């Protein structure tokens, strides 16, 4: 604060300013534009004036830095973190250079400078740099942003070794002897769950993450970026308890918004004229501040109460919406269950498990006491249940005429749960027994859907469909398709992945209109046409869960978990989402599960913390003249408690003139997030091969562009070079091409598996997507024995800490192996974890005692492992094993990871479960990782 006296409106701001650091490090190329925004608001780092800050202050940097990475993604239940040692895990931002073999700079270069501090403030390294003399300026990044600083010379020949990685790969195929396979880049453990720290007052990247933290200033620059310019949006992502989004209530005066573009008040709005006006960050309009919101400004031009008001100091805020944001009173949470009770559903035990799970969740359904619930079951007939609270037993009405369904008793089909609790419980108890002997094989899903939508038409809500067979009666009946191999590679191929009958699209549109969000649970081993059924979820913000060949003993646990999570997680009802971008930038395409209500308004009848979206941006003007680009995501929703709220995430990103900065600031997680959605969407109207090619071309173009920028200058002709930030791009693109929705052709996956995985990928958040693409592979036997050896230490600490790991003590994860079949030692046991399930692979010559200890004695010699439930045995080894599984599951709470067991050499299953995950091996028509790199290198070298 000592220098605050010389901080004028236009001079460089406070010393603790991350922005200032940039300004000094990156000297300008152009004088500041005339409408250069006063830099006052940058001088508001959360760290600078703690005494004025009664709001939950941002945790001190030290804490942020040392939080276990897993907690960045998922909120662990309170007791666990309190037990866990605070410094047990590696810092989330391990130094950029983590890979052996890739670290050394090319021999012709001077040694690299020390690893750069995370780009935006908040880390200890950053603070250190603040105190030290500034490092020599590198290239002209952020040209045009910074005011000229005296005494900073033009950049001398600067070492670029820190800007990209290079691999020496000879361009002749198959002769890549000089690069070790181990040297290829791989994601470090836990990197999926780790987010960068938010910059300035931006929202946390778990909510809104751009593919590059540098927006190009012109069309020509954007065209040279080649990768998608967009973002992954996860508006309701789960945050750890100390980072909950603050709630702001403006009372009756209404939320302060820009008059023209309707942007919500945010930390980047600049107050002027003693606080009487504010300038909207998005559209630059000068707005009046409402009388009761006026506050005096301090000498830097920021409001004196900025730190007391979350909406002026934090990027993510929940506004309480007053009456004018409602078209009707906030709806109560509504859950409606549409259950197929045909013979397949009864025999496989789905009905029993579903009824039990629903019953156990009745207490935990959000929104008590307003929650409403209803049931409808169907086979060739529809069964309605009157759940009137005055009854003791539910009344069942069977409607045999499915061609033109009507509601036999319109009133009591959807009831208040707290009033009719006993009747609902009685129904759930008796449901399995009513249909225990049902031999009906037909399934009238279409008519049941029509009846359901008319029951729910008044309020809307969440509709859960449990479908066990192909719909065969009434409207919306579906045919068997996708069985002929010759359809693949023809123009008729993409039709397999979209709804066959237009009924489903129309029904989805109707549901969206009536505020019904549909979640589809499909179970059949045979073809169920998930592509058509999933359409219902696709346009209503829902999800598709697919359990092929459901078997109650094995899959029951997973269904129970998934269903109870679906019923109990925080859900936003009757929501709409809109994205506002700064001047000159426009959203172009959205991807995910929603329906567009108007050109930029996403209708989401029910959205929850497990749904992510992506958006692509386009530049409107030819040249962006401002220094920062602003983005604001606003989700207007009704919370389960019946309050109308608006969740607003705001982010600001520098606009740059330099392509190298764009690549440097690229964010691999978001790039992969957008690319995979693009590829899945492409596969819906094009051949699989073209969808894969589409992503491939984008990647090669980007790498070629990058090479052209540096290779000639630095005589790296024979090398493949890639930006540090995108070093994993080839691996993830390879993994994406081998992933279930895009893999191979007819033989490689059933159409249902493909569709279900595709629907899932469209809604996945960045951490779960990266985990799915590159699963973790753990050698189990060695790891468990290692853990056993420190049993005493564990007992002392009364908690389970995985003390042994790849990087010395204190690492809480077992070492991860590269995903190649070569590491699968027949003497060992291995676990892969892709966020969806665990696959336990048992080697041929693994000690039988180990198998017996983990899976129970009767399993050790049994040959059929298909239906072996993995349950905890009464011994230490098994307990450790399950503790490991529990820990891995906790990182990934959105779906239950079922553990399946596979023995080496088991025909078919091994290939399907294990080898399909080995993305670094040859498979599905794609080369191994090494060959892939050679191939990319060759393509990058080619002149277009």
């Amino acid at each position, binding site marked *: 604060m000592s220098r605050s006296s010389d901080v004028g409106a236009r001079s460089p701001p406070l010393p603790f300013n991350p922005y200032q650091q940039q300004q000094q490090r990156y000297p300008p190329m152009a004088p500041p534009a005339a409408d250069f925004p006063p830099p006052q608001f940058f001088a508001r780092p959360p760290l600078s004036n703690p005494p004025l800050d009664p709001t939950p202050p941002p945790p001190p940097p030290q804490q942020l830095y040392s939080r276990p990475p897993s907690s960045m993604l998922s909120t662990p239940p309170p007791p666990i973190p309190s037990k866990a040692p605070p410094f047990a895990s590696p810092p989330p931002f391990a130094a950029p250079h983590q890979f052996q073999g890739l670290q050394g700079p090319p021999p012709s270069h001077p040694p690299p400078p020390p690893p750069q501090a995370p780009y935006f403030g908040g880390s200890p390294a950053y603070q250190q740099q603040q105190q030290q003399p500034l490092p020599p300026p590198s290239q002209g990044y952020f040209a045009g942003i910074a005011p000229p600083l005296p005494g900073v010379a033009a950049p001398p020949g600067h070492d670029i070794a820190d800007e990209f990685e290079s691999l020496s790969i000879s361009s002749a195929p198959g002769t890549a002897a000089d690069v070790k396979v181990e040297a290829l880049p791989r994601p470090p453990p836990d990197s999926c769950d780790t987010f960068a720290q938010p910059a300035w007052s931006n929202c946390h990247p778990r909510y809104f993450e751009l593919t590059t933290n540098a927006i190009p200033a012109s069309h020509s620059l954007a065209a040279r970026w080649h990768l998608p310019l967009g973002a992954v949006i996860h508006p309701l992502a789960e945050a750890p308890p100390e980072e909950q989004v603050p709630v702001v209530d403006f009372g009756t005066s209404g939320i302060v918004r820009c008059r023209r573009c309707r942007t919500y008040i945010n930390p980047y709005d600049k107050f002027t004229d003693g606080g009487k006006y504010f300038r909207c960050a998005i559209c630059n309009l000068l707005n009046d501040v409402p009388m009761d919101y006026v506050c005096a400004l301090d000498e830097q031009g920021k409001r004196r109460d900025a730190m007391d008001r979350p909406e002026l100091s934090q990027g993510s805020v929940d506004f309480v919406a007053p009456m004018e944001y409602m078209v009707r009173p906030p709806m109560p949470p509504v859950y409606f269950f549409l259950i197929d009770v045909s013979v397949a559903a009864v025999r496989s035990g789905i009905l029993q498990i579903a009824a039990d799970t629903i019953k156990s969740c009745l207490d935990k359904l959000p929104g008590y006491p307003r929650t409403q619930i209803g049931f409808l079951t169907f086979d060739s007939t529809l069964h309605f249940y009157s759940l009137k609270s005055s009854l003791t037993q539910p009344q069942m009405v069977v409607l045999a005429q499915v061609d033109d369904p009507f509601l036999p008793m319109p009133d009591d089909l959807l009831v208040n749960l707290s009033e009719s609790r006993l009747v609902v419980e009685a129904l759930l108890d008796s449901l399995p027994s009513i249909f225990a002997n049902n031999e009906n094989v037909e399934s009238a899903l279409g008519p049941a859907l029509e009846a359901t939508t008319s029951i729910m038409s008044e309020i809307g809500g969440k509709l859960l469909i449990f479908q066990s067979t192909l719909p065969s009666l009434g409207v919306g009946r579906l045919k068997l398709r996708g069985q002929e191999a010759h359809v693949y590679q023809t123009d008729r191929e993409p039709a397999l992945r979209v709804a066959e009958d*237009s009924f489903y*699209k129309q029904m989805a549109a109707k549901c*969206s*209109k009536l505020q019904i969000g549909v979640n589809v649970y499909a179970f059949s081993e045979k073809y169920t046409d998930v592509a058509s059924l999933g359409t219902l979820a696709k346009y209503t913000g829902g999800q598709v869960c697919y359990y092929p060949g459901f078997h109650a003993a094995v899959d029951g646990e997973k269904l129970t978990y998934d269903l109870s999570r679906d019923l109990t997680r925080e859900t936003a009802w009757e929501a709409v989402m809109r994205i506002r971008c700064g001047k000159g930038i426009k959203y172009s395409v959205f991807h995910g599960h929603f*329906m567009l*209500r*108007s*050109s930029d308004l996403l209708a989401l009848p029910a959205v929850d913390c497990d749904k992510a979206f992506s958006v692509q941006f386009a530049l409107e003007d030819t040249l962006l003249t401002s220094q920062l680009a602003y983005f604001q995501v606003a989700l207007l929703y009704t919370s389960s408690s019946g309050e109308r709220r608006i969740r607003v995430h705001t982010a600001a990103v520098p606009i740059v003139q330099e392509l190298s900065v764009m690549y440097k600031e690229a964010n691999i997680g978001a790039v992969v997030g957008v690319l995979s959605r693009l590829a899945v969407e492409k596969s819906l109207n094009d051949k699989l091969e073209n969808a894969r090619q589409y992503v491939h071309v984008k990647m090669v173009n980007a790498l070629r562009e990058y090479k052209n920028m540096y290779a000639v200058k630095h005589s790296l002709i024979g090398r493949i070079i890639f930006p540090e930030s995108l070093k994993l791009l080839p691996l993830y693109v390879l993994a994406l091409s081998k992933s279930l929705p895009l893999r191979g052709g007819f033989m490689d996956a059933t159409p249902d598996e493909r569709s279900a995985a595709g629907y899932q990928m469209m809604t996945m958040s960045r951490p779960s997507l990266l985990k799915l693409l590159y699963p973790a592979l753990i050698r189990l036997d060695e790891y468990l024995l290692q853990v056993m050896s420190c049993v005493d230490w564990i007992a002392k600490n009364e908690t389970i800490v995985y003390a042994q790991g790849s990087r010395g003590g204190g690492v809480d994860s077992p070492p991860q192996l590269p995903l190649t079949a070569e590491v699968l030692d027949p003497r060992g046991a291995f676990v892969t974890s892709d966020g969806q399930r665990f696959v336990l692979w048992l080697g041929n010559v693994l000690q039988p005692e180990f198998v017996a200890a983990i899976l129970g004695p009767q399993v050790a010699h049994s040959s059929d492992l298909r239906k072996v439930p993995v349950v905890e045995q009464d011994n230490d080894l098994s307990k450790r094993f399950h503790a490991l599984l529990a820990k891995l599951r906790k990182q990934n709470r959105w779906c239950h990871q079922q553990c399946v067991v596979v023995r080496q050499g088991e025909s078919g299953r091994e290939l399907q479960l294990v080898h399909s995950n080995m993305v670094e091996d040859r498979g599905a028509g794609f080369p191994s990782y090494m060959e892939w790199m050679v191939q990319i290198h060759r393509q990058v070298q080619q002149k277009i």
Partner: protein
Amino acid sequence: MAWDLALWILSFLAVAAALGIIVYQLLCLSDLEFDFINPFDSSSRINRFVLPEFAIQGVLSAIYLIFGYWLMFLLNAPLLYYNIRLYMSKRHLVDVTEIFNQLEPEKKIRFYKLGFYLSLLCIVIYRLVVSSMEVILESGIASMAEI
């Protein structure tokens, strides 16, 4: 030649109706684009008139074929083929769920149709005038012959 005149009058009405439908659909699409109506209304309004337009165009082509107006039929044939193909592949209706992604192509195709119907209208008016002149002249000659 009275049937000739009747036929051209009929085609004039038909083309004018088709033109009206196309303009209406374009209005619906641009209303949607500027957020004046919601996608549900917009698509149902557009879809209501898709088949009538196809029918008008089909009937017109059939009449030209039957009465031997080869040139007029050839003029109509490409659009007829396009419409039939669209109908057979069940892509003739606007998809309410994807209407925003289809907005540009749908508008484009309707602009082409608009241009086509406008030029057709010009031809039809010309032929209408010619044939009505013929009828008038013929009746004039006939009445002169009576004198």
